[in-house]
C-alpha cells in the first residue's frame, strides 16, 4: 500500500473545487483514459487584473492524482497568471506534504494542466507539448522531460519514469531517455564551453598515450586474457606489442587496428597510427 500523507488522504477524500467553473476563460486537458490518469482544469480569469478568480478540476486517476488536482486548484486561486505559472510540480507535492516517488507524475500532471490552461488563455501553443516525441506509450516529449529533469534535479532514467511515466510501458524508449538525460545533465554541468586544451607537446602526448593504454586499453584486453605493452612513440606512430591470448589469436591484427587505434584516436589524437612491434 502506498504511504500517503494525511494531507493527500484529506484532499483525496474531500477534494476541493470539483467540477467546471461557471465561465470558462481557460481550459487545460492532460493525460488520457488509456494512460490511466487524466485531468481537466478550467479557470475563470479576471481579465483586468490577470488574476485567477476561480479554478475547478475533474480528474480520472488514483488517490494522489485526485489529491494533486485538488491541491493545485487551491494553490492557484486568487493568484495572477504569472504567479500561478511559477508553481512547479515540486510545490504541488510539498503542499501535500510529499508524494511517494512513484507517484510524482501526478504532481507533474497538475503542473502541465495549469500550463495548458494558461496557454489556452493566452492563445499560445503549449511549450512542453512541443518537441520530439520520446515515449510513445505515454506520449511524452523531450521538452517535457527536460523541464521535469531540471525542476526536480533528476539524475536517473528510473526517476524520469516516476515523474513523467516515460519508459514505464514497453520500455523501448529507455535508450533514448538515457541519451536525453546525459545531454541535459551535461548541459547543466558545463554552462560555458570547455576551455581549449593547450597545444600538445611531445611529452604530453606520450603521457596521454601511456595513460590511455594502461588505464583503458590494457584492462579491456586483459578481460579477454590478453595484454598490451607500449614500446615507443614516434610522432603519430605508436608501437606496441601484444601478449598472451591476443598474440596467438588469429584476429589479433584486427584487435590492434580496430580496437587500440580507435581508443587512442578517441582519447589522444585522431591522427594516431598504431603499429605492432615484433621483436
Amino acid at each position, binding site marked *: 500500500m502506498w504511504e500517503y500523507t494525511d494531507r493527500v488522504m484529506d484532499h483525496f477524500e474531500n477534494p476541493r473545487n470539483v467540477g467546471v467553473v461557471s465561465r470558462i476563460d481557460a481550459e487545460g486537458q492532460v493525460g488520457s483514459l*488509456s494512460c490511466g490518469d487524466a485531468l481537466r482544469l478550467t479557470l475563470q480569469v479576471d481579465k483586468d487584473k490577470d488574476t485567477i478568480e476561480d479554478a475547478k478540476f475533474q480528474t480520472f486517476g488514483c488517490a494522489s492524482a485526485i489529491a494533486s488536482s485538488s491541491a493545485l486548484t487551491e494553490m492557484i486561486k486568487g493568484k495572477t497568471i504569472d504567479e500561478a505559472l511559477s508553481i512547479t510540480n515540486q510545490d504541488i507535492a510539498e503542499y501535500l506534504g510529499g508524494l511517494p516517488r512513484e507517484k510524482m507524475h501526478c504532481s507533474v500532471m497538475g503542473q502541465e494542466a495549469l500550463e495548458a490552461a494558461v496557454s489556452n488563455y493566452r492563445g499560445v501553443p503549449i511549450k512542453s507539448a512541443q518537441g520530439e516525441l520520446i515515449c510513445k*506509450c505515454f506520449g511524452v516529449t523531450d521538452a517535457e522531460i527536460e523541464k521535469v529533469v531540471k525542476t526536480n534535479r533528476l539524475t536517473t532514467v528510473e526517476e524520469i519514469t516516476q515523474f513523467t511515466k516515460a519508459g514505464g510501458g514497453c520500455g523501448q524508449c529507455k535508450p533514448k531517455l538515457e541519451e536525453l538525460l546525459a545531454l541535459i545533465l551535461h548541459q547543466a554541468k558545463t554552462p560555458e564551453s570547455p576551455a581549449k586544451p593547450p597545444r600538445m607537446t611531445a611529452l604530453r602526448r606520450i603521457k596521454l598515450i601511456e595513460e590511455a593504454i594502461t588505464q583503458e586499453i590494457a584492462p579491456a584486453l586483459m578481460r579477454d586474457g590478453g595484454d598490451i605493452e607500449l614500446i615507443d612513440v614516434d610522432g603519430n606512430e605508436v608501437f606496441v606489442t601484444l601478449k598472451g591470448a591476443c598474440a596467438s589469436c588469429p584476429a589479433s591484427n584486427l584487435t590492434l587496428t580496430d580496437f587500440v587505434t580507435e581508443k587512442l584516436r578517441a582519447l589522444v589524437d585522431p591522427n594516431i597510427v598504431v603499429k605492432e612491434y615484433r621483436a
Partner: protein
Amino acid sequence: MKTIYFDNNATTQVDPEVFAAMEPFLRDMYGNPSSMHHKGGEVAAPLRQARQKLADLLGCAPEEIIYTSCGTESDNTALWSALRAQPERKHLLTSRVEHSAIYNNVSLLRRLGYRVTEIGVDKYGRLDMEELRKSLTPDTALASFHWANNETGVIFPVEEIAGMCSERGVVFHTDAVQAVGKIPMSLSQSRVDMLSLAGHKLHAPKGIGALYVRQGLKFSPFMVGGHQERGRRGGTENVPYIVGLGKAAELALRRLPEENSRVRDLRDRLEEGLLKIPYSIVNGDREHRLPNTTNISFEYIEGESILFHLSSFGVCASSGSACTSGSLEPSHVLRAMGVPFTAAHGSIRLSLCVYNTQEEVDFTLEKFPPIVAKLRALSPFWKDDGPAESALLTCDSDNCNLCG
C-alpha cells in the same frame, strides 16, 4: 473498524488451527529431522503426517511432493527442471495470462536462445485450444498453463491440455496456486506432470510452497544442496511451516464442498449486487471460474481510488489498474483479454473465502455504489449519469503503443 477481507487471492489469514498446529515446532520441537538424536527423531513423524495430508488434498503419493519456499519457487523449479532435464529441447509453450512467476521468465528465456510461444485468450479469458494444439512440437520442453487465473479466477481446461501434452510426449506443468483448495483434484488419475501451490493462499502462512512432481518424471533440482526432499531440493526442512501446510491441507479438503456452495453463493450475491451499478462489467468467463473470485470493471473511474475508499470502510480488495499493478500499465491479464482501457483501469477483484459472511457481502453492497458515484462525479469522462464525450478518451499521440 471491522475488517472485511475480500482479497483472498492475494493472501489469506492463517487459520487458528494451523497456527496451533505449528506452535510446538516454533517452541520445543525445534530439531532438525536429519539429526541422529531424539530431537531430530521427534519431528520425523509429524513431518511424514503433514506430507500425507497434502498428498490427500492433491490426490497423489507423498513422495511426489517437494516442499519449496513459495509459489514462485515452485514455478521456477518446474520450468528450469524441464529445460535442464531435456537440454535438446528448446521450446516453451505457455499463455499470455500466467502469473509473473512464469510470465517474467519468458523474456529471459528468449534472451537465452529459447523459443517461446505464448497462447492468447479471448475476451472471456478462455484459452485458444486450437492454437495450443498446433504449437506443441517435438522440440517443446515444457507446456506451462495455470489451472486458474489469479485476477479473474478463470479456469483453464487443465485435464484436456495435460492429455494433449502427454499424447505428444511433452512435459506439462500447471501453476495451481489459485486452484488448490478451491477445486477438487486427483493428480494420480490425471496426466499432469508437475503442479505448483503456495501455502499462504489456503490459510497456511507465507514462506511455504510445494511442487508436485509425478513419479518417474525426469527432474533437475533448482536449489542444489543437501539430501532433503530426496535430493530434489536442498535446505533444512522448514518443519513448522510444513506442519502448518499439512493442517491447512486437511482443512481445505474438508472445506472444499463449502467453498463450492456457500462461498460460491456469497460471491454470486456480491457480483449480482455490484452489477446493478451502471457501466459495470464482469471480466472473465463466468461459467468456468473459481467459486470465490469476481473481477468487475467500473468504467470511467480508476481502481486505486476505489480501493482507498473501500479501505476506509474496512473492505479489502485489489485492482488490475496501472496504479496498483506496480507498473504504469494495467494488468497484462486484462490487456491480453482485450479489456478496453475505459474498463481496465477501473477493475476491482474481490476474492472470498470460507470466513466471509452474508453480512459482510451486504455491508459492501451498501457502501459500494456511493463510492463509484462519488468518483464518477469527479471524472472528466462522466457527465450526469452516463459517459461524457471527451477528447481525453485516448491520447493524442498518433502511434501510441498503449492505445494500439
